[in-house]
């Protein structure tokens, strides 16, 4: 029993990060990759300005937000290194945006349903 406890203890203190890897290998993103990201962000900006000039009806805001979200994901993955982080960090980032969406959805469903049938 005591032996077992000691084993658990050494598992938790896995200084070499081998038995139960909990932090990522350190990864350095190269300037070349950053330049590609930079180029794609500038391209996205150009696209969104050009798209705003065209009349797509109800799709104008959807296209604009789609481009903005794509750019944001690129920034998060590469400039903010989330692609190279551990699952802990990835889950944290994902959980944050998910919680935000839940708040938006619930608040919107309140406002939408207040005047239900009265319009």
């Amino acid at each position: 029993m005591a032996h077992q406890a000691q084993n658990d203890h050494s598992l938790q203190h896995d200084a070499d990060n081998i038995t139960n890897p909990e932090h990522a290998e350190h990864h350095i993103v190269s300037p070349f990759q950053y330049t590609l990201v930079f180029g794609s962000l500038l391209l996205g900006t150009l696209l969104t300005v050009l798209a705003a000039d065209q009349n797509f009806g109800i799709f104008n805001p959807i296209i604009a937000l789609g481009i903005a979200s794509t750019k944001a994901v690129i920034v998060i993955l590469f400039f903010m290194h989330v692609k190279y982080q551990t699952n802990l960090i990835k889950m944290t980032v994902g959980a944050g945006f998910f919680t935000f969406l839940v708040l938006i959805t619930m608040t919107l469903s309140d406002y939408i349903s207040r005047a239900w049938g009265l319009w």
Partner: protein
Amino acid sequence: MDSAIETTHSEHDAQEHAHVFVPQHRHHFETEEQQREAGSFGMWLFLLTEIMFFGGMFFAYLLFRNWYYEAFVAASNTLNIGMGAANTAILITSGFFMALGVWAAEVRKKNLLVLFLVLTTVFGCAFLGVKYFEYKEKFELHHVPGASFDVSQFVNPPIDAKTGKPVGNPVPADQLQHTQLFFFLYFAMTGMHALHMIIGIGILAWLLVRAQRGEFTAGYVAPIENFGLYWHFVDIVWLFLFPLLYLINRHPLAH
């Protein structure tokens, strides 16, 4: 008892690490990677609170734009797309140099790190400079919410010199005052964004001094990396502000 602990402790030291103090590996962390990840984790938790903070204003914009659509369309179309687009490019460039700064710190090139931090600051200031001219125009047109707010432009839209037609439809009388709501949100959102940039530029100045001393190019990259996360987050907020405030109302739906 004391001596027993003392013995174990010094054996432990001898086996695992000599006690040399390095800021990237403080004694309560087992490895440098663990300390680094703990730092990133904390920074991301802070950024999540920032998402919620800006998120409230984005939600207000979403709701009021639906309620007072004509007023929001007319008010939004007075913004200067050229300046907004230029500022987007300027901010992306600033973020690009910030990312390169993180790289320079990782590969321990001190002069490059200082250069990239300076460029990040310069483009950050350029963004605020453009913003100043945009705000100035709002004051001149009396588009700042408050006692001197003037709706006349939305009662009689000015004639476009090129087409000879009014630039937009008059806003219905019951919605005229709601153009003020658009500008209130415009100033609240871009103003909070600008405040974040001003704070960021202040921190950049402090990081520059320390980078010049070589504090971040001997393995201790965390302050540069975590500030980078903050700076990129502020970029992302603008990536959404630009289309939502400036772009999506160019082709209004008939209501």
